[in-house]
């Protein structure tokens, strides 16, 4: 079972890599039709002008001159293939996790490798859930799969740890509650981060910036759609993160005798909570620019990464479960 899990990790990684290449193909050869349509729809949906408008979804107008229709179809095909391969990869990802859990005879969240494996799975699942409802966001898949390939690559090559049973302190039903919530929230924040980064790139592109990261903005969905997606993902993840921290505190009371002890991991979970709370407040404040608010969300993800990587590897504390 352990070997099966390791083999499926390779399948997963390759699937996301293929999906990334397909997305890239769609991105480079594709027309802007899909995106332009999405942008128009967004404009109408947002109620920009205060008078009710007929939705101007006459999409083909968005196809720039000089793009052969055949190319558009091929690009669209590549995009659909990318989504299909991502779904395949997600299935392999799930097998990787489940077989790992069966091999270890416990929830597969016992060390840092397994944690990253789970967070990325939640991220992909959240991405596919978003995509099912908003197909016009498909171009974002390039960046989602890129992040997944990087994280899974790091997990497989750097963080990999052989299967081991849980230490007594982790042997509690709060283990399932606390860590599943943390994974769920982290995975959603991860997709939220991708949306936030793409929003900033797109917003910069719309302002006429044409240097490197902003050139990526040419073919992603409209800024407003990205911004709203960013907010909804964070608004979804934030209560889960809060609950996960609270569940951890209840567990810490039983295991260590105090619900809060400023252990480095706790401290950084608190910092992330505060930063994300700042994001939600900033976004609800009209005088704060949306791009400023979104930068706070980016900062929030930076604190999450610090908690995942920095605290596990460089700071010691009660949460030393990295297995490295």
């Amino acid at each position: 079972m352990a070997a099966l899990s390791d083999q499926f990790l390779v399948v997963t990684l390759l699937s996301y890599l293929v999906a990334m290449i397909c997305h890239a193909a769609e991105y480079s050869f594709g027309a802007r039709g899909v995106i332009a349509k999405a942008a128009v729809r967004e404009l109408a949906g947002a109620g920009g002008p205060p008078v009710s408008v007929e939705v101007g979804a006459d999409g083909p107008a968005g196809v720039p001159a000089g793009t052969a229709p055949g190319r558009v179809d091929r690009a669209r095909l590549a995009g659909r293939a990318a989504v299909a391969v991502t779904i395949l990869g997600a299935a392999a990802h799930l097998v990787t996790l489940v077989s790992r859990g069966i091999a270890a005879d416990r929830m597969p969240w016992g060390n840092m490798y397994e944690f990253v494996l789970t967070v990325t799975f939640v991220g992909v699942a959240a991405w596919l859930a978003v995509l099912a409802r908003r197909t016009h966001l498909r171009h974002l898949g390039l960046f989602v799969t890129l992040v997944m390939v990087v994280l899974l690559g790091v997990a497989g090559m750097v963080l990999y740890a052989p299967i081991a049973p849980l230490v007594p302190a982790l042997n509690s039903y709060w283990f399932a509650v606390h860590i599943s919530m943390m994974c769920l929230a982290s995975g959603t924040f991860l997709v939220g981060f991708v949306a936030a980064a793409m929003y900033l790139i797109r917003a910069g592109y719309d302002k006429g910036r044409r240097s490197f990261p902003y050139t990526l903005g040419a073919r992603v969905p409209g800024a407003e759609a990205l911004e709203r997606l960013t907010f909804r993902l964070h608004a979804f993840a934030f209560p889960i993160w809060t609950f996960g921290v609270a569940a951890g505190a209840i567990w810490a009371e039983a295991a260590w005798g105090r619900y809060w002890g400023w252990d480095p991991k706790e401290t950084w979970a608190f910092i992330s909570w505060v930063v994300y709370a700042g994001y939600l407040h900033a976004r609800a404040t009209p005088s704060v620019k949306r791009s400023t608010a979104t930068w706070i969300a980016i900062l929030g993800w930076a604190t999450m990464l610090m908690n995942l990587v920095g605290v596990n590897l460089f700071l010691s504390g009660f949460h030393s479960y990295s297995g490295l």
Partner: protein
Amino acid sequence: MTTVESPPAPPAPPTPGGRANPLVALVRNSWRQLTSMRTALVLLFLLAVAAVPGSVLPQRNVAVEKVTAYFTAHPDLAPVLDRLWGFDVYSSPWFAAIYLLLFGSLVGCIVPRLRDHTRALRARPPDAPHRLDRLPFSSSGERAGAPAEVAAALHRMLRGRRWRVVTRTAPDGALTVSAEKGYLKETGNLIFHYSLVVVLIGVAVGSWWGWHANRLLVAGPEKAFCNSLQQYDEYGLGARVSGAGLPPFCLELTGFEATYQETGQPASYTATVAVTGSGADRSSSFAVNHPLRLSGANVYLLGHGYAPVLRYTDRYGQSQTTVAPFLSKDAMMTSEGAAAFPDTNVDPKTGARDPNLQVAFEGVYLPTVPDQPPLTASAFPAERSPGIMLWAYRGNLGLDSGVPGSVYRLDGRQIANGQLKRLEPTPHLLRVGESWTLDDGTTLEFLGTRPYATLSIRWDPGEKIVLVGTAALLAGLMLSLAGRRRRVWFRVTTSGSTTIVESGGLARSDHPGFAAEFALLARGPE
């Protein structure tokens, strides 16, 4: 922290009889500044930044020994950091200043908001604006039926969908139906922010009336202890707790069971204790994650180890037995410690005590002695083949010097100044039951070991307040994020014999689905 930024402070209204008192104006403006959203955001950000050093520097309340190590490693930097509360970040004045200002800003914002919200909850939805077609969502059309009937049907439809509705008659005879929904958003938002205050109160109660203590408890009736400060290795009392007020109980460790995987990784620990002195005497088992809950105190199992039992027989044939807990230093329970016999070699005839004939042993205990040398580290954490490697020392132990020392190691200064001499250059390995005869004919016997448990005894009366506050906080948070405040208006007028309904809608919070909802409502009751 208002969701909507407060408008720039208007100029202070002139007080009767002249200009505003500058002090009053200053206080008022500072308060306005403090309760503004921008200030709250800056304070939130500062709070996050201020929490960082506490995760990088060792903290006294987390691991005091790491602070000591830091002082040794950075003798120049550490005192400076210490003066800036670098090792007590979370109880430092500057950290407190940030969160108290933040909570000041919070209270200054949520008290007026609660007032406004209760007013809004009691008020009727506002009358329709003059021009409904200026609203973000609007439509108009003809309807069948008399205006009064149409308005009543709209009213019923909105009531049925749990909108708060009021129908008014305008001076020009038109009927207006105003409706509002989504009050729970603001209710949830307020619950969330008030819960934060409750959590802070709970934390404060815990730090004032809570206490904690640590104790290493060796198995055996003569090693039992009772809950008083003298019995603890280390303790901390809240500001409002006196040592005399601790709840009475006594604990004796009667059993300790540890199981391990073949790799040596621990699988479970269970301690069994006899509890006396607090109501009915009883025997209880507790484990990691399952503390022993007594009235007014919880006992947590933090760790465990072995206490070798050593019997020393001196040159006059007098025997003494000591149970010396050895501290484990690795995952395989290789344990270090010392056993001192200060009152040996006392001549029974004269009672004369030669301070230079005190005896002590220092070394490591290996629960499983490896098959191959070096015999310096245990091969397994359970006692499969126990053995103890000891160095013998004779001389003055320095226990009478008055300088506090560790019971787990001998006084290094006495060894350095030659008053305490090591008898043999190499350590001696003793198995259970074996004895070792020293150069002066005295013997040391290794009788076996007893388990010990390291316990943390804690009480935090603020815990329940924090728990309730957190539950309310979560409920409020979800209401606040899921709720959507919106208003719709209908104006029913007649033009000749036809009834015309104008409608308008306004989403007061981000609500992508409002367009569809408005379209449905504007179509009117089917």
